């Protein structure tokens, strides 16, 4: 399977390069490290700063001579952020919406991905075109009619409406990934099972599903993260403060900024990142190989 061949850098990167650059760029080494340091600072410093801000007391945040690391670590911003009732409710809403979206997307994309990669019908071309087109059109064109439709059927200000929108919105990507994973399972395995007298359903359950599960997990987590992070649709479709998702609540938190709130704002932002970051660590390898698998075999 190409998947293993493409799993990212650690596997064959270093050995290859050691062979390649025998003495070629001994002078370049320090420069390379300097550049790497530059990247590490650019990418890492904002994160470090967010972390240390969340650990500073309100008094220290107002100090005229701030230090990067807090003089005494203060965890009260985190409890303060959690105690803000609307953030807690918002986290609950985000979790509900993201989980429901993940389940729904998985249920509808799994059979579709299987059909698209196994049956050579016209559907496949249509699906590819749609997947690509869905990336090009600006959301503003979709959101206005969607707003009107959802309003008509009473799903504005409703988490069900949000789940439906998120599902359709993350479907192209889920299909793209899953279809690549399905294509990576040899058809011969299914045919062998059929020869041995297994029914279609049984073949799918006992042969395809187990082989597909790592890719399925990656797709699920990716869908979860997309829904958890999404902002624009939520901004338009949800007005009730009790129904707002975490990104919405955080964006409104800023309005009430003020120097005193900075610590709590940083703490809340960190807390909001943890779930998707955790999931991301779990799937990053598979995600990249999945993208490529979809690209290579789609």
């Amino acid at each position, binding site marked *: 399977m190409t998947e293993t061949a493409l799993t990212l850098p650690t596997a064959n990167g270093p050995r290859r390069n050691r062979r390649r650059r025998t003495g070629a760029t001994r002078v370049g080494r320090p420069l390379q490290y300097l550049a*790497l340091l530059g*990247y590490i600072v650019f990418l890492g410093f904002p*994160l470090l700063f967010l972390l240390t801000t969340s650990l500073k007391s309100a008094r220290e945040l107002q100090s005229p001579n701030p230090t990067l690391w807090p003089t005494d670590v203060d965890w009260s911003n985190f409890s303060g952020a959690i105690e803000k009732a609307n953030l807690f409710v918002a986290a609950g809403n985000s979790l509900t919406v993201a989980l429901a979206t993940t389940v729904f997307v998985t249920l509808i994309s799994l059979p579709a991905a299987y*059909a698209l990669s196994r049956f050579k*019908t016209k559907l496949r071309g249509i699906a590819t075109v749609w997947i690509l087109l869905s990336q090009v059109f600006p959301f503003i064109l979709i959101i*206005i009619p969607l707003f009107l439709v959802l309003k008509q059927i009473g799903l504005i200000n409703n988490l069900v409406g949000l789940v439906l929108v998120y599902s359709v919105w993350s479907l192209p990507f889920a299909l793209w990934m899953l279809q690549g994973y399905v294509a990576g399972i040899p058809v011969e395995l299914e045919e062998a099972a059929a020869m041995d007298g297994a029914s279609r359903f049984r073949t799918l359950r006992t042969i395809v599903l187990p082989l597909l599960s790592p890719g399925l997990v990656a797709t699920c987590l990716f869908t979860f993260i997309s829904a958890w992070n999404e902002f624009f649709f939520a901004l338009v479709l949800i007005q009730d403060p009790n129904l707002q998702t975490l*990104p919405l609540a955080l964006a409104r938190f800023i309005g009430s900024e003020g120097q005193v709130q900075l610590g709590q*704002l*940083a703490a809340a932002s960190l807390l909001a990142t943890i779930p998707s970051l955790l999931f991301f660590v779990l799937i990053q390898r598979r995600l990249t190989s999945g993208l490529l698998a979809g690209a290579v075999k789609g």
Partner: protein
Amino acid sequence: MTATATAPAPMKRRRRRGGGVAGSSGRDAWLLVLPALIPVLVLSVYPLLQGIFLGFTDSRAGFNIPTNFNGIDNYVKLSGNGLFWSSFQIGLIWAFSVTALQFLAALGLALLLNLDLKFRWLARTLALVPWAMPPVVIAIMWRLMFNPTYGPIDEIMRAFGLPGDTNWLGNFATALPAVIVVGVWAGMPQTTITLLAGLQSVPLELHEAASIDGAGTIKRFWHVTLPALRPIIVAITTLDLIWNFNSFALVYVLTAGGPGGQTMLPMLFAYNEAFRYGNFGYAAAMGNVMVILIGFFLFFYLRSQARSRLS
């Protein structure tokens, strides 16, 4: 193995299946795709077509306001709307600079990550984090960074004796460059990882052959690495350009389009038109103009790439 033992049979089966595309397997495929197809038609295809159509009407928010088809009125009005065109210009500056800088930064990082350097793991991990962060959180983080009284950027400038009181996001001259930096930071992961995967699929033999012919590092980069990466570069910069042009959350939270419309991306402009002022038809017309322009750029970019690959 069993696979070899049963090999002849699947061949026959597949042929039969292939012949019956219009028959049972075609119906199977439709049946399996249907659960995904219905929501897509209702919540994606229909709204999209309706949205394009709304761009030719005077649709407004609110109950019982009749919607009338008004042809190209919206576009005539748009062509005289200086604010929209300046927002469009800002959108293009934003999309092209973010995409270009993102690409250069990501290419540099990918090349470094492809070397056998210490601390590579750290840079690699850090490069992935922005991918997982909600755009709203990224924006909040950079608001803190750019904060004129508390933010570390002004702090560092003061430490070097420079005027450290710039209100980066509130200043006419610095707001757009500042949000572009954030855009680059937020979008680097996808580009880096994609390019890195591409770098690792460049056949080693090509490099060896070039070395034997006496090509140095830079020559090999120009004549071996870049041409081999080309399809991946075209694909990722195309996607980046589309994503950046259509991006919303980052700048909405950073500046909400301010100061004085200096960072008013077209998406923000259209959002305000639709959901602040309620001019649905007019906003949809803006969306149509955006699609046409982005399609135009993509067409020329992809065509020039296809041509130079042939030559």
